């Protein structure tokens, strides 16, 4: 088995300037760090709550991928659309969804962002144009292209960004959707978050072409790559991709090379990789790396850095408290939102009689 190594990086992203030169304004830089820390602390607590059976089902954590998530979200405009996967708590948080609503959804509570109908894999925030976490691998690509089609049809310059894992590049929708998006020149950025594994199967064992940024070439979609462990590189490359797509009206594929430090889900013994490999990647942990960079550059004091962490822990505490106190959905909500009930139709939508 080929062992993925961080040595394969860093950035061969070509055009992007030096990382120091890419530093945003100090306040913005601190916000980015805070967003990454919030996701990290949120995910850690979610893992604890799962162990305490407060959260059911599957729980896919993003720990290790925060630079990819935040670097991408911060490159988007407010009016752009983000479409994500079943590993999407971080995407919702980065887009601005209150941690309370995300945690309440994990708890299956009424005040969750999807009212307890969706759970971990199905976050959504229409107001912030976070157009969903999707539980089917590759199922979100056509939907993202459809959103881009609607934007294009209206003549807006909104761009849709669709993230998916390396495993999704083997699904039929990858080929189908990239072809169609290129053919119709749709404003969509396809972003493969290459965390080196499709569940427990390593990239080299699931994809004949492991240089994923090239996987769209034959479909008419050029690729770019960023170091997904580096928020500055991710932000720079994704910004460039969004700008080009907005301007040139054609899709691009961006590969973010990253690594998840935790298992695929909480129910993952991780027999498919070594502790040494994980430890090696953890040395490139994007959060301390960015924190230290900001300190070196003099835009962050150690006290500010500690305060960012304390704030994140407090926000997550509040989110857990909120989720605990939010009521479970009542039985009257079982049938709520199956259909949009309006005047177009009448008759029996459901069979809800005795025995059901």
């Amino acid at each position: 088995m080929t062992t993925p190594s961080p040595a394969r990086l860093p950035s061969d992203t070509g055009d992007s300037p030096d990382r120091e030169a890419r530093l945003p304004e100090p306040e913005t830089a601190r916000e980015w760090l805070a967003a990454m820390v919030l996701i990290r602390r949120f995910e850690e607590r979610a893992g604890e709550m799962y162990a305490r059976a407060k959260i059911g089902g599957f729980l896919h954590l993003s720990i290790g991928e925060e630079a990819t998530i935040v670097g991408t979200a911060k490159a988007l405009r407010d009016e752009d659309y983000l479409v994500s996967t079943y590993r999407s708590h971080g995407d919702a948080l980065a887009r601005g969804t209150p941690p309370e609503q995300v945690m309440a959804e994990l708890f299956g509570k009424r005040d969750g962002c999807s009212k307890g109908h969706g759970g971990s894999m199905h976050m959504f925030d229409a107001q912030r144009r976070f157009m969903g976490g999707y539980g089917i691998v590759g199922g979100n690509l056509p939907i993202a292209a459809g959103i881009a089609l609607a934007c294009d049809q209206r003549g807006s310059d909104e761009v849709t960004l669709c993230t998916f894992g390396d495993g999704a590049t083997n699904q039929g929708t990858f080929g189908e959707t990239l072809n169609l998006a290129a053919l119709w020149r749709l404003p969509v950025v396809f972003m493969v978050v290459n965390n080196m594994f499709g569940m427990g199967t390593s990239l080299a064992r699931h994809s004949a072409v492991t240089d994923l940024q090239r996987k769209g070439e034959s479909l008419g979609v050029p690729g770019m790559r960023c170091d997904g462990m580096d928020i500055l590189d991710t932000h720079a490359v994704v910004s460039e991709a969004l700008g080009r797509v907005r301007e040139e009206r054609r899709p691009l594929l961006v590969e973010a090379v990253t690594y998840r430090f935790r298992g695929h889900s909480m129910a993952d013994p991780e027999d498919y990789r070594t502790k040494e490999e994980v430890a090696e990647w953890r040395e490139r942990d994007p959060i301390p790396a960015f924190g230290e960079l900001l300190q070196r550059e003099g835009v962050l004091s150690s006290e500010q850095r500690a305060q960012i962490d304390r704030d994140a822990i407090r926000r997550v505490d509040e989110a857990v408290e909120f989720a605990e106190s939010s009521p479970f959905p009542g039985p009257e909500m079982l049938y709520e939102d199956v259909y949009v009930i309006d005047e177009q139709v009448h008759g029996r939508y459901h069979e809800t009689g005795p025995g059901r």
Partner: protein
Amino acid sequence: MSELRYRDALKLALREEMARDENVVLLGEDIGVFGGAFKVTSGLLEEFGERRVRDTPISENTIVGMGVGAAMVGLRPVVELMTVNFALLAFDQIVNHAAHIHYMFGGQARVPLVVRMPQGAGHQLGPTHSHSLEAMFLHVPGLLVAVPSTAADARGLLKAAIRDENPVIFIEHESLYGIRGEVDEQDQEPLLFGSARIAREGSDVTIVGVSRMALTAERAAEQLAGEHGIEAEVIDPRTLRPLDLDTILASVAKTNRCVVVEEGWPHGGVGANLAALVSEQAFDDLDAPVVRVSGADVPMPYSKPLEEIAYPHAPDIVRATLSVLGRDPAQALTIPLATGQDGQRGQDGEPGQDGQREGEQNAPGAVQEAMQQVGVESEIREASR
């Protein structure tokens, strides 16, 4: 009133809704330049342009999925799939996405999408192009399912489907595209989903016919009246979700007997569902168990004599009705199942004596599709005029 073919009634609905709302867009394989495999969309590309009538690659799952995404942010896409069997390639987007998005995202997103497709046997297209799968879609909460059998219903229901806020599976029938029917072009109103049509009134037995089987049931009812003195009430539910069960129950309360006819498979079928509902909710009204008539429990065979006996015809319904009335099915005067080679069966939408098609090929679309495979598109276009 004017007399329109079923396919032209569908086109009229598309044209009217596209003119009414610029958010209505059509997506599908060969719907534009080619005019549609069954010519439902012919002329619409010229009328509305290529941004609203979009020829797609052969990528069913992605076409439907793009319809889902576009619908979530305000377009009203109408996706055409060439046959119901091809919809199976899009089942992920139809079931996991279109049907569930409104629910799983807590009502924050709507999917006002229509997915149109024809179904049905009778054209020797074998096991991958001939099935009737409405039961599969009926099974899924979150979807609405329409199965129109007349030109007027096709137009009215398609207009309603396009205006509805829910994803709609709109199932047409390959054998009905050429059938003519009265359509009131002045009446622009959509036909409400969830309202059954009583195709024929009667007091002795209720026959519910789904999709094309509504017409076959009407033919059977004529035989029952003419040959057996039995007055059957024929009901076409027109939509399966929502279902106008009240009309069916009211009829059963009057007739006390019920036959359900579908072209699809028996296990887990529409007939099984209706039989269960009627038995549960009208048990005291029934003088006999509900009887189902369905397609044979086999993949659709190619060979004509086999295909003929693999889906219901009027004589099958006559026999089932006689049995539910406690009469000997052998009393049926009708000739036994024919081989179909003599063209005298006169089934709805089949070659024969129904005289409704004015010499038109029964299902030009199916023929065109077959011809397309041997590369004679020019003849196809010619034949369609």
